[in-house]
């Protein structure tokens, strides 16, 4: 009976008589041709033989309800699967948005705190000025303090200098798109090492104060990268990277451009199309850098020099 049923199921396709030529491929052929469940044909054949046409009342009702329930189950299954997938993608989206909001919020907070710290520093400086301005020794100490503070980048400074601008080669997507994704790094992208190179070149050329994208560099500043984002003192900066250096403008420019880092950047520009520009500035205003946290060191007792 099984072969009879199989033949019924294969009605329309080629009749199988004897051994087939493609017997070794029977699995694939079965998949392609034997698509209807054989049990349908078997049950039909049994029913046709067993009892006369026209089923009884009882099974008739059951016959209508069970398939409907089955179909309903299929629908619920499909709907649940679709809802699941949608849920997952919307959850991802929501999470990303939440994180972005949090990053923006924290950045604002941190900016506000930095401003507050600068205000307080100014207050302290003003109070100190008043206290030291009373006599000659105090005034001398105050001047010395101001000079040291400027050199240590704890006060804002102003003066002539040069502005070096570094930018990614045109054609690459802006770093803002996915700076932390890590994927392949386009060749024409400015790396943290390039910014370091410029800063070191400027120091070597005689710069007295340097800031990257408005962030003053101190003796303890670090320029690093996370993913593809360049970090200055752990705060991300974005291209174009503007490096300002205060110093003797003409001397600074000549020595920087002719120095090793200037030559290296000129090479990078001609090789990869990185944007590199050096300009003199009459007056630059550099903000104060963060006060370094002294963890282990403390002022030597009694030592004023």
């Amino acid at each position, binding site marked *: 009976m099984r072969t009879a049923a199989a033949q019924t199921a294969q009605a329309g396709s080629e009749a199988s008589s004897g051994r087939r030529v493609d017997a070794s491929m029977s699995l694939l052929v079965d998949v392609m041709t034997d698509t209807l469940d054989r*049990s*349908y044909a078997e049950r039909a054949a049994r029913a046709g033989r067993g009892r006369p046409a026209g089923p009884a009342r009882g099974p008739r009702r059951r016959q209508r309800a069970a398939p409907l329930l089955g179909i309903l189950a299929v629908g619920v*299954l*499909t709907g649940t699967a*679709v809802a699941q997938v949608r849920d997952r993608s919307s959850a991802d989206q929501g999470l990303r948005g939440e994180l972005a909001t949090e990053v923006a919020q924290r950045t604002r907070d941190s900016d506000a705190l930095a401003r507050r710290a600068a205000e307080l520093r100014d207050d302290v400086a003003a109070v100190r000025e008043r206290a030291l301005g009373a006599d000659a020794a105090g005034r001398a100490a105050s001047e010395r303090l101001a000079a040291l503070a400027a050199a240590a980048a704890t006060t804002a400074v102003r003066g002539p200098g040069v502005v070096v601008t570094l930018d990614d080669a045109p054609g690459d997507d802006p770093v803002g798109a996915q700076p932390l994704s890590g994927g392949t790094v386009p060749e024409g992208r400015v790396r943290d090492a390039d910014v370091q190179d410029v800063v070191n070149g400027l120091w070597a050329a005689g710069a007295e104060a340097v800031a990257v994208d408005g962030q003053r560099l101190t003796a303890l500043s670090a320029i690093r990268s996370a993913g593809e984002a360049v970090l200055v003192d752990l705060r991300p900066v974005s291209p174009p990277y503007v490096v300002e250096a205060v110093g003797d403008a003409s001397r600074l420019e000549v020595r920087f451009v002719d120095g090793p880092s200037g030559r290296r950047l000129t090479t990078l520009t001609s090789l990869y199309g990185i944007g590199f520009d050096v300009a003199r500035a009459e007056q630059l205003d550099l903000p104060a850098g963060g006060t370094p946290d002294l963890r282990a060191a403390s002022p030597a007792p009694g030592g004023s020099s």
Partner: protein
Amino acid sequence: MIPALALVVGVVLGLVLEPTVPAALQPYLPIAVVAALDAVFGAVRAQLEGIFDDKVFVVSFVSNVLVAGLVVFLGDQLGVGGQLSTGVVVVLGIRIFSNAAAIRRRVFSA
């Protein structure tokens, strides 16, 4: 007509109620849907050929879903879950397409 309605009602129910699926079963849901669809297309074809049987439909529906899930589960345990899911989808997809073609031939005689 009524079965089609039942299908739509089922989809809406699933979308609206969003039944919680245990996390362990989630990967098998799409496979289960494909397997169930195969059973449905088989049933429709059998109906058109006049050999539909409710018991066969329900049994084939349940067993299709279970076996498909089991195969993928086994694949997951063996580290080839993705490939086996693809295999299940391909085989069931072929069946769905040829059953749909048979249905089309019956309905439109073309």
